[in-house]
């Protein structure tokens, strides 16, 4: 069987005909397999959803109890037979509960990796390498200019700034699922033990991380705290909020932003970021290329991001590669990007 007979892109997303399901569908389908909880991959309204327990929980937090007709949790490494194929979920290292989905049909195995990173992250299981014939990779940071470096170094940059400007508040823009908790965990690892403040939109998901046993130290809502008391503190907020009227409650805030995009100055400056922190939940160029090589896959399908450069690289290494035209992904990062240039998530959050 040819790989494209097992998985093929259709308008609803990546479709597995022999298994009767879609992976991360962007439209409501009968049966969906979801890689992780970010809103561009995990959408409500499907008939049946198969995902890790954490991903199901996050969807419930976001969309309410009836986000799908029925749900089934699958553990990492567990194998499930669906139609003519066998599927298994493996840690993707992207956010809590994120998974790569391996689809095996006869002797052909395709791994749809969703979003992934091979860098260390204290808030989720580390990326697992799954040998395969076809590897479907993201390309969010698919240019050699993207090398994220050591996230701990970026966090020490933040702490140095807090020390230098004790009279100012530090606002860290970070995506509310995954990035925010990772930044908090890294701050704790760096020995920062003061309370960390949260924008209202961060609270639910961050407390969920704590429930799952991820130590994040003392957290407080920023809501209702006196302006003067926020001097010298660190607050995590969704990127859109850091340039919003919401920031006026903080004393002379330093605007930081944790994102892989911060590697490029023009991107950082565009949004008035004063302290760019290169901390990403996606693999950087070295991570992408190393992972592709390590899977042993002879064929690479490249989706959402800088496909051209990565496809070019694969070809220079003698790998068959093509861009996979899937639409609707990368919104999570587009959200970050849009926030840089002004508005995201519908404008004025006052939470």
């Amino acid at each position: 069987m040819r790989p494209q007979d097992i998985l093929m892109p259709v308008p609803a997303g990546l479709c597995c005909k022999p298994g009767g399901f879609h992976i991360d569908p962007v439209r409501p389908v009968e049966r969906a397999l979801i890689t992780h909880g970010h809103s561009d991959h995990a959408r409500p309204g499907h008939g049946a959803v198969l995902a890790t327990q954490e991903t199901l929980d996050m969807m419930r937090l976001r969309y309410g109890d009836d986000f799908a007709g029925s749900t089934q949790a699958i553990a990492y490494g567990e194998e499930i037979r669906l139609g003519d194929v066998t599927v298994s979920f493996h840690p993707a290292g992207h956010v809590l509960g994120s998974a790569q989905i391996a689809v095996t049909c006869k002797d052909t195995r395709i791994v749809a990796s969703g979003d992934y990173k091979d860098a260390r992250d204290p808030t989720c299981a580390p990326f697992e390498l799954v040998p395969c014939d076809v590897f479907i990779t993201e390309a969010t940071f698919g240019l050699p200019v993207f090398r994220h470096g050591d996230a701990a170094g970026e966090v020490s940059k933040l702490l140095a700034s807090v020390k230098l400007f004790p009279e100012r508040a530090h606002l860290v823009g970070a995506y509310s699922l995954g990035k925010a908790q990772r930044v908090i965990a890294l701050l704790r690892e760096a020995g920062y033990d003061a309370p960390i403040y949260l924008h209202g939109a961060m609270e639910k998901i961050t407390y969920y991380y704590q429930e799952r046993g991820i130590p994040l130290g003392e957290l407080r809502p920023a809501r209702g705290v006196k302006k003067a008391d926020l001097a010298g503190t660190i607050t995590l907020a969704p990127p859109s909020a850091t340039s919003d009227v919401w920031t006026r409650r903080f004393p002379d805030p330093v605007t930081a932003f944790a994102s892989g995009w911060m590697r490029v100055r023009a991107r950082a400056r565009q949004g008035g970021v004063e302290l760019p922190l290169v901390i990403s939940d996606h693999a950087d160029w070295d991570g992408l290329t190393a992972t592709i090589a390590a899977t042993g896959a002879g064929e690479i399908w490249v989706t959402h991001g800088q496909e051209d450069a990565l496809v070019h690289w694969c070809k220079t290494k003698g790998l068959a590669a093509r861009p996979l035209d899937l639409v609707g992904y990368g919104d999570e990062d587009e959200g970050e990007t849009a926030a840089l240039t002004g508005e995201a998530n519908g404008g004025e959050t006052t939470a």
Partner: protein
Amino acid sequence: MNRFAELLDRLAYEPGRNNKIKLLVAYFRDTEDPDRGYALAALTGALSFKHAKPGLIRDLITERADPVLFGYSYDYVGDLSETVALMWPKAELPGHNNPPPPTLTDVVTTLRTLGKAELPAQLARWLDELDETGRWALLKLVTGAMRIGISARLAKTAAAALGDKDPHEIELMWPGLSPPYLDLFAWLEGRGDKPVNRDPTPFRPVMLAHAIEDSDFANLDAADFSAEWKWDGIRVQAVSGRDERGHIQARLYSRTGEDITGSFPDLAPSLHLPGAIDGELLVLRDGRVQTFNVLQQRLNRKVVSPKLIKEFPIHLRAYDLLGDDETDLRELPFTERRAHLERFVAKLDDPRIDLSPTVPFASWDELAAARADPKSAGAGDDADAVEGVMLKRRDAPYLPGRPKGPWWKWKRDPHIIDAVLMYAQRGHGKRSSYYSDYTFGVWTSGENGGDELVPVGKAYFGFTDEELLQIDRFVRRNTTEKFGPVRHVVHEPDQGLVLEVAFEGLQRSPRHKSGVAMRFPRISRLRWDKPPREADRLETLERLLMSMTGN
């Protein structure tokens, strides 16, 4: 180098002046000699070596990396130095003894003597040794394209802050100092004597005036002040002195201390007596002072051609005398300095240099009348180049900076138009959550017969904090479209916000769709009471332009 790179990186993102100073002071405090001295030199533009061309950088990267991937990357990043800094693949160095990254001192001293042929290999070695930020700073430094929003003045102010000194003191001694400024830092840290400036033509920090408000007059006695015209040219300081061999050297400085002698070679021979004149640079044709618009055509030219010199004859109108030969006059009261100045200008006896005449007055009302009509109050045909009047306390010494009280500027009333708010953009720094940059327009006949608004300018100050809040609220509630940081604000005949805009002058400008550009526009009032249809028309501005240029 990495520490310096970190500083540049942070400065490039920091919008606030005081915060920039804080970052600089921390760097100067924590960094050793001579690195910090070379950093100060880099920030003040005092380093000199041959800059590397962009082509050289491009060759370096395409030798090292896949040109196709470089192409994609450069397209995405948009800046050559940054692209190369980010994607530079480090060479696999043999063995485990990686050399330490170069210090700023290594880089600066090596570049000073390095031959052109050796440059590429040396750059490649440094790029291998540095991290991303270090590579970026290195490439910015060697290509001579720092542009990180730091003025030389700000860097010196930060150095002064390190030793709790007045920045003017550094400004005074600066021409006598050279990188890496070991003597300067020793003095700042209390380890050495104050460096002496042996420069025969030092810059002296300039004294500036506050704008006077109507309410100020009640507390001021007209008899205490002397008045003169405020000429609309460029404030300069013309300094002459004798070098070690007794020859006269002349320097022309801008009010910030920048040496602009080279742009005015026609003035230098006139400065043939040792002394320091505070004055205004003007263009005079047939004895008549030209407007700022004319003077502007002589400024910022790379080449000062004989034709330019002939068409725009330069002139110095003297306001004050700060030094007469070796004597420092700055401590003397204004009236005494003025007497010195009158004698000095008479002795110079040069057609290119004359006295700024005083405006006689016995009461504020009399001065108000003169200000309203400079032509009949003594300025005559030069009245168009008068911006207003300057008031100087007769007993005041010459003080650096902008002390409140001794000097006042009383400008002529600005031009005023009513314009309609069209677009708003977020501000920077403290204002980053406010829409504080406004593009405004006036009515003109559109192509389809009806009236339409055409943008005529941008303003981002003039309003009070309270007014800013009001406009911000209006912008947020009346946005019709969003383009990144820019919002289109409703501007219909019956819907929209009319802004009263004050400005100092008008110029033709082919770069603006309206064909006119304003000088120094600011929001003077919010006209909530006025419907946009009653705002001014472009024809009003065009008429004004005609009357200003007189043709």
